[in-house]
């Protein structure tokens, strides 16, 4: 492998990219134009709009039901508001208000307090959703506030008390944060998100062109027959994507910085003395290089995998969504970078960015962030090299291999398309019927969901297509030794998975009421056996029949491994709960493995039941003596317990693997 040939590839790709007006526009010109237009244009437009509204003023109908000198004073002061017109309230005023010719109806009322003190109220009817209404309220509020002060001072003077008594207690702020910190806090939450997004979209346009584009334009073959190693091609193209991604980040950063500075100085915010220390700027750039490397490698892999640019686009969308969700962490208040967080890509950069902006980062976090992202990006580069060297991927769905369609056997029920259709139908039924049944009566609803939505349709389909349930669903008794091992696999797995859910809770805090809703499942009956039956045994049987038994058959043509993964994903999606997606996905992978390995669904049913049962037991007996030593609080398992749990899990899984390995005869 010679680097000089990679450079030849790199040089040519850069030349081509710089000649592509679209690329130049989207990754360089757009950010240069976008931010000034967005910030400066929008803010000046807004302030102009405010002025227009103020100039327009408002017309207000007035009812003075008090008619004394206080109300007279209030009215007198109100008259001083510029551009406001007042008219006495008449029966037509309501009609005028509806037609928006009158924007407010104001009435002054009074009442007596218990100690016979007259108090007044200015009642204002207006439309707060309109800009004019909001302006109207603000102006009147300020005006009434000043009238109140006058009245208070007058009353105090009457009883010969100094008006200063009103200022007997006050709060004075001493803000010790530097102006850099203030700006950093504001910019630290939006900037990382914007940067990650622009990095992705910039790199995506380039990556799409470099391999998927070459496939589409049929130039890839010519390149491959040259005396240049495929790894050299990958490296050259890879460098081009990184370069463009970084140019993109850089241009964005600079353009954004100038736009924000300009906006602040225009809006009169104190900006003097605020300057970005050059080293925090460099630190951010340094952290973005590994991310650019990672993103570029992932995109290059996707581009190599795709048959054409359109297909690449369809993979890019989900990738963008995931990164968006990760990057949004910077918006969340109170989430700070920790050692664990620094291991998660995108999230770590976003939080590091925030910390650098307010000058509260640690060098350890910086190193973990950069190091873990670098490691991941090396793995991703390795993957894209592997993909580029795999002819079945590089020429996926090309000429010869598409010929097999000619001798395709007749369609049977179990193909992926029907599998997805079934899944969608089941989801719809679950979403509409299931939740309706459960809101009526939780325990009966759950039983009905399992039996009528999950189990019954499977049995009906099998009946209609005259398929043998025993064979299709793998209803076969497992070996006793497998059954013995299952608890040793399922219980530690449940511990690990529930701790993972706890970790997710830390990153994306569950919405309020979420945990209460979850635990309401476990407390629906006083009889723990009934709860276990509804929450653990029934789902263990019915859901396993649907997923590991039935749905997995639809995806078998992709091979066993992939079908396990796909079904695990569907399984996770089926729970209609984004917070539990990853834990359920992992559980689904385990259950799929157990079924496929042993050829018996009983194992996964047992495992599933134990897993759900574990949650019931923990939430029911979480405070009793025998389980307490394992728990931190009523729900969380102690981290130290996880180590032996993981060890038991590993050993039991290994033994399961061994006993299920077919003996050679």
């Amino acid at each position: 492998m010679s680097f000089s040939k990679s450079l030849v590839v790199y040089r040519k790709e850069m030349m081509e990219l710089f000649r592509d007006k679209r690329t130049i526009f989207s990754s360089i010109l757009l950010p240069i134009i976008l931010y000034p237009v967005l910030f400066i244009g929008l803010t000046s437009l807004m302030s102009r709009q405010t002025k227009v509204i103020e100039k327009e003023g408002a017309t207000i109908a007035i009812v003075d039901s008090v008619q004394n000198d206080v109300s007279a004073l209030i009215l007198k002061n109100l008259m001083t508001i510029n551009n406001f017109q007042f008219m006495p309230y008449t029966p037509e005023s309501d009609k005028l208000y509806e037609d928006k010719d009158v924007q407010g109806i104001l009435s002054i009322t009074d009442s007596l307090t218990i100690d016979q003190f007259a108090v007044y109220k200015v009642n204002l009817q207006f439309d707060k959703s309109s800009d004019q209404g909001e302006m109207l309220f603000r102006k009147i509020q300020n005006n009434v506030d000043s009238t109140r002060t006058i009245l208070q001072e007058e009353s105090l003077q009457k009883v010969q008390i100094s008006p200063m008594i009103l200022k007997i207690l006050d709060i004075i702020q001493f803000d010790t944060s530097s102006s850099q910190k203030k700006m950093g806090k504001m910019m630290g939450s939006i900037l990382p998100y914007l940067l990650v997004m622009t990095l992705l979209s910039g790199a995506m346009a380039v990556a799409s062109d470099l391999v998927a584009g070459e496939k589409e334009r049929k130039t890839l073959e010519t390149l491959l027959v040259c005396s240049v190693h495929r790894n050299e091609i990958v490296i050259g193209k890879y460098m081009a994507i990184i370069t463009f991604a970084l140019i993109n980040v850089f241009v964005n950063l600079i353009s954004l910085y100038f736009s924000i500075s300009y906006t602040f100085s225009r809006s009169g915010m104190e900006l003097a003395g605020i300057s970005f220390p050059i080293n925090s700027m460099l630190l951010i750039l340094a952290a973005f290089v590994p991310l650019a490397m990672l993103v570029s490698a992932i995109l290059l892999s996707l581009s190599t995998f795709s048959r054409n640019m359109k297909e690449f686009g369809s993979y890019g969308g989900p990738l963008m969504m995931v990164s968006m969700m990760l990057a949004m962490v910077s918006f969340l208040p109170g989430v700070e970078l920790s050692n664990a967080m620094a291991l998660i890509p995108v999230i770590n950069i976003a939080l590091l960015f925030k910390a650098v902006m307010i000058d509260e980062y640690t060098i350890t976090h910086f190193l973990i962030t950069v190091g873990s992202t670098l490691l991941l990006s090396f793995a991703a580069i390795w993957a894209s090299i592997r993909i580029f060297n795999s002819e079945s991927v590089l020429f996926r769905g090309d000429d010869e291999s598409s010929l097999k369609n000619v001798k395709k056997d007749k369609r049977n029920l179990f193909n992926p398309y029907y599998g997805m259709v079934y899944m969608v139908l089941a989801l719809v039924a679950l979403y509409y019927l299931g939740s309706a049944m459960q809101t009526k009566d939780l325990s009966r609803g759950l039983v009905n969901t399992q039996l009528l939505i999950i189990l019954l349709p499977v049995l009906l389909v099998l009946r209609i297509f005259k398929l043998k349930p025993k064979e299709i669903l793998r209803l076969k008794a497992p070996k006793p030794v497998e059954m013995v091992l299952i608890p040793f696999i399922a219980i530690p797995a449940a511990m690990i998975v529930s701790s993972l859910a706890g970790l997710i809770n830390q990153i994306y805090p569950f919405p309020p009421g979420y945990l209460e809703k979850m635990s309401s499942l476990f407390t629906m009956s006083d009889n723990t056996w009934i709860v276990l039956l509804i929450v653990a045994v029934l789902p263990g049987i019915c859901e396993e029949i649907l997923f590991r038994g039935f749905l997995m058959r639809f995806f078998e043509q992709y091979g066993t491994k992939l079908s396990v993964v796909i079904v695990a994903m569907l399984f996770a999606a089926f729970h209609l709960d984004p917070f539990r997606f990853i834990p359920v996905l992992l559980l689904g992978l385990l259950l799929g493995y157990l079924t496929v390995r042993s050829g018996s669904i009983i194992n996964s049913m047992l495992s599933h039941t134990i897993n759900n049962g574990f949650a019931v037991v923990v939430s029911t007996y979480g405070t009793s003596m025998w389980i307490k030593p394992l728990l931190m609080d009523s729900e969380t398992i102690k981290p130290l317990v996880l180590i032996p749990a993981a060890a038991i899990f590993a050993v039991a899984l290994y033994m399961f693997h061994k006993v299920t390995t077919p003996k050679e005869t």
Partner: protein
Amino acid sequence: MIKVMNLVKDFTQKDGSVYKAVNDASFDAQDGEIVCLLGVNGAGKTTMMRILSTIFSPTSGTAEINGYDLRKDPSKVRENLGFLSGDTGLYNRLRSREFITYFGELYGVPRDVIKQRIKEMSQLLDMEDLLEKKIEFLSSGMKQKVSIVRSIIHDPQVMIFDEPTSGLDILTARNIVSFIRDCKQRNKCVLFSTHIMREAERLADRIVLIHKGKILANGSLESLRTQTGQTDLDDIFVHYVNHSTDEKEVLANEF
């Protein structure tokens, strides 16, 4: 020269079954000879060409290009091989000269040699005025000329043409045909694939018939005529296909 020895290429399909795109194929092509790989669409021609140009690696068997084994020495094979196909795309945003130079550099040809060759070839192909133009503004005939220069910029001994005239108009196709003849004159070894019988008749010194991945016949047009007793190449082709054992099996299965 090209020497193909018991070449097999399997493609594993999604359902796990194996499809033999090239099935135990052997033949050769000498320097100064034009050999035509003739077969219908899907016969395995492109797969064969892709194996010979090291894009695909064979499942079993091997081939030598100019004495280099494509399993052991793929980079040497690529250095000694020029590849041209009818539907290859070009980089539209490059100028013709940049495009050719890029490939020259990838082949490791020194810059001054690249310059010299571009000059010679563009005179020969009457395309000097195209060199500084961007490729996107060229007609398909002009593009094909650029592709020709690209394919021989490293002066390879063996030339492989995969369906070189497919999708081209008559005039452009004529350019290619005369270029293939020119290669022979300069004692290059030429292998070209086609499904057009007339093209094979006109150009080839020797015809290798391929069908469903298997080589059915190998010989000059004359010898194929005497073997089959047919004069027309179309009839010769059908004769061989009908007499292949494989085909009989398939027919038996279908009825």
